[in-house]
């Protein structure tokens, strides 16, 4: 769905942040020199009253990925996001957008970048209450001075994209929270920017609506391939949306990595603690908990071979595959014994309607299925090829190893 984090080369990076520091207070530059001389953040706060909100942040964002900045409240993630479009002025460091430094860009350059290249979605939706939905979405285009007819056209397209056609002339206060944030998203998309900055965009929504919006965002991302920088304090959200996640604490980035890396290779105790509460059943998918389908038997084989295989593996059922490991069904030891006595071919005792699941199914959906099933679950891919098997024990074992390597 997302561009896998494995594909990372420097040519693909659209934003590169180098040694970004933000200090709040009346004399940030002076405080910066204290910081560079090695004073601790705590010392600086106690002695000068300055607050070091971001300290030496470096990371790069690849074109087309969803990069999630995650951390507890007050860790500086929203400040960092606002530094990227300079709603907050960074104290030191570089932000390279396609190689061009934004920190030293002039006000006019910045204005044009904000108009054309990056737009923002806000936690509280921030729709203008006196404008109808269409005019809200067209706001960015209006700022650019695009003629009325043209911007209404674009706004309608954008409204369609978020599935709200028909609400053109409603006002924000007539819409539910979820719908308002769709409008917020449509407004950000209307000026077709390369980069979307999303500040806790879904945090103010009900859990069910939030999940819908997350799916919708992934959907839109699939179609438009924007680069999205998403701030969240919700690890589940980060794991669901993020191509890569930067975990922040007290103004510093602790670890950057793919969701799997964050979960399975936590860099230090902080990350470990952060991820230990995560609902692994949502994060892990069938392919994470399945076992290699060994043994399995080819459909042209005979019942005696099947019995022998089962005996050796100490199991009472066996998956039957055809050409290219295509799943045919399952046989039980009792049936194989009967077939052996009566001389039946394997084909006659195969139970074809075996429960099979796709290898991307989350474990949370597997648990109820496996609880109902008499047999182990077959894990298959799009071509019905048998990729693995899941038995109850392997699910429990995977969930038991919370945060550990799976």
């Amino acid at each position, binding site marked *: 769905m997302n561009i896998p984090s494995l594909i990372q080369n420097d040519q693909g990076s659209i934003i590169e942040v180098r040694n970004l520091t933000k200090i709040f207070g009346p004399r940030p530059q002076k405080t910066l020199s204290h910081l560079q001389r090695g004073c601790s953040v705590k010392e600086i706060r106690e002695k000068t009253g300055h607050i070091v909100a971001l300290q030496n942040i470096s990371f790069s964002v690849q074109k087309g990925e969803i990069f999630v900045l995650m951390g507890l409240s007050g860790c500086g993630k929203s400040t960092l996001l606002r530094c990227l479009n300079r709603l907050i002025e960074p104290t030191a460091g570089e932000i390279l957008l396609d190689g061009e430094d934004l920190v030293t860009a002039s006000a006019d350059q910045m204005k044009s970048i904000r108009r054309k290249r990056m737009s923002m979605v806000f936690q509280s939706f921030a729709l203008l209450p006196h404008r109808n939905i269409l005019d809200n979405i067209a706001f960015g285009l209006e*700022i650019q001075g695009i003629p009325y007819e043209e911007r209404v056209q674009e706004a309608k397209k954008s409204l369609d994209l978020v599935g709200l056609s028909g609400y053109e002339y409603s006002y924000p206060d007539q819409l539910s929270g979820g719908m308002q944030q769709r409008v917020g998203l449509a407004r950000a998309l209307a000026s077709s920017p390369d980069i979307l900055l999303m500040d806790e965009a879904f945090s103010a929504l009900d859990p069910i609506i939030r999940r819908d919006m997350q799916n919708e965002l992934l959907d839109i991302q699939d179609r438009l391939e924007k680069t999205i920088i998403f701030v969240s304090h919700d690890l589940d959200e980060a794991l669901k949306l993020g191509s890569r996640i930067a975990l922040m604490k007290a103004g510093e980035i602790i670890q950057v990595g793919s969701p799997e890396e964050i979960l399975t290779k936590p860099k230090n105790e902080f990350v470990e603690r952060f991820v230990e509460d995560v609902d692994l059943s949502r994060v892990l998918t069938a392919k994470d908990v399945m076992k290699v389908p060994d043994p399995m038997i080819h459909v042209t084989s005979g019942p005696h071979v099947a019995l022998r295989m089962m005996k050796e593996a100490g199991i009472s059922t066996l998956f039957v595959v055809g050409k290219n490991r295509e799943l045919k069904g399952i046989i039980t030891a009792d049936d194989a014994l009967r077939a052996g006595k009566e001389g039946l071919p394997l084909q006659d005792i195969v139970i074809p309607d075996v429960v099979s699941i796709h290898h991307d199914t989350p474990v949370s959906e597997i648990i109820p299925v496996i609880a109902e099933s008499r047999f182990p679950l077959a894990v298959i891919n799009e071509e019905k090829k048998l990729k693995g098997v899941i038995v109850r024990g392997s699910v429990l074992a995977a969930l038991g190893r919370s945060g550990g390597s799976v």
Partner: protein
Amino acid sequence: MTVSPFPRLPLGSAIEDLVTWISTNLGWLLDGITDVLTALTNTFQSILSSIPPPVLILFVAIISFALKFRGRSQKKSQYKRFLESIDLPILCVAGLFLIWDLDLWDHSMETLALVIVSTIVSLVIGIPIGIFASHSDRFNQIIRIFLDFMQTMPSFVYLIPAVIFFGLGNVPGVIATVVFAMPPTIRLTNLGIRQIPKELIEVSDAFGATMVQKLIKVELPVALPTIMAGVNQCIMLALSMTVIASMIGAGGLGYQVLYGIQRVDIGSGFEAGLAIVIIAIILDRLSQNLIPVRELKQS
């Protein structure tokens, strides 16, 4: 009598010197202001008094109905909206008709002209100052002292310099009224813009708006309900100044009240006072219905 042991500050004489200095050195400016205000007041007064009373009454009735009807929720039926909106035109017609019947029409039009001119001047000066105060904390602190001063200093005190600078008549009346009526405009414009949620301001910045675009497309429209409350207060205070302003020669209903007081003519004083109340109520209701209120929905 308590006498302070410290040398007395010559505050009173300093003010007197200042007033004399202004009237001798800034005469050209004072004359200019007088000319503009006289022209404005006369224009409005002649327009208003040239309209026959029945026409103006009908006009106010239609406007008041239209404004109130527009403000009713569109979810309700037309009939219900009509019922909810009809009270205001009835009130306006009855009130204005009473004024006409009491032979106070011409005086009322003069008062109305003075109130309109005072309000326009207050808004033209007050709203930009309010906008500026909302963007600069330091300016806001300075202006607050002046606003407190303007609102609490007894208005009789600045009637005297007003007379010295502008003579007797409607113009010093307008000036004194502006001094008294302008502060709420400034305060509420400032407050309205400061109260705008931070993220709405960020929206205009994040989409690359210029200062002017931000002001016109975000700040003023979002603050409009609060600014309009200031306009409403400005109109009300301007009306409340009519009697005081008549002491320095401003005409209209205020002068009728003053006349009634001086002659101990309870009847005519009460009638003119009632006419002021009627005009106040009508202007208040009209200005309150001027913009449809859209509440800012916060999640």
